[in-house]
């Protein structure tokens, strides 16, 4: 097994995080990350960034809107 280098690891990073790599590719990326502190730091950054984006972009729905949606229901006859 030849293993992947940093450049390939970088290219695989997003699909790796999306869990869409094939099993073999996934293992190859994992193996590289285990042995490479440079890519591992960047992997942790990418994971944290995604969580951070998700958290900061969530805005709660106003309770008034929920009431308006409920009012759109078909009245029971």
């Amino acid at each position, binding site marked *: 097994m030849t293993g992947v280098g940093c450049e390939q690891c970088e290219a695989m*990073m997003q699909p790796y995080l*999306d869990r869409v790599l094939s099993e073999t590719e996934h293992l190859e990326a994992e193996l590289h990350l285990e042995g490479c502190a440079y890519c591992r*730091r960047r992997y942790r950054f990418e994971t944290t960034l*995604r969580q951070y*984006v998700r958290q*900061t*972009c969530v805005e709660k729905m106003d309770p008034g*809107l929920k009431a308006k*949606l409920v009012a759109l229901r078909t009245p029971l006859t």
Partner: protein
Amino acid sequence: MSETTPTDGRRLAEGARERVRFEEEALALADQVYRVARRLVSSREEAEDLMQETYARAFRGWRSYTPGTNLRAWLLRILTNLNIDRGRRQQRAPDTQPLEEGDYFLYNRLEESGRDSNADEERVIERLSQDDIVGALSAVPHDFRDVIVLVDIGDFSYADSAQILDIPVGTVMSRLHRGRRILKRELAERAVVEA
């Protein structure tokens, strides 16, 4: 002839029960639908209008939903169609700015602009404020942003996103790829200006 027979009555009651169940399930998903809707448009007012139109249409057309399929995706398909139909998406010029080559460039840029190299990842991210993130996301052109919002904020699969937006899965993947790069470029611009 206008008299309803017992069988008709039962059928009517059955239909009403199904409708009530549908409405309750759809309303239970409202928070999750709103979370996506809010980031598809630029203001809270727009998101609220869109939600009301979507639910009005969903309640009218509930019979076209197939029970047991993904209701959240079904609702978002209505919502994204309405968003496009109403011409709310101001057409921007296509994004022609060159994109950074690699995927690591945001981290590298943040690391360079910080005092200490090898700063830990969380410290690096803390340099981005909530306004930076929201601002950067809204600066991403619509076609790319829609996909990022569905996948990264709405947790939809590539396949569900493709169905919601009525585009091929391959297009979802390529827009996601380019969209995330654009988002990073926007984040880098904001973070570096502040540093």
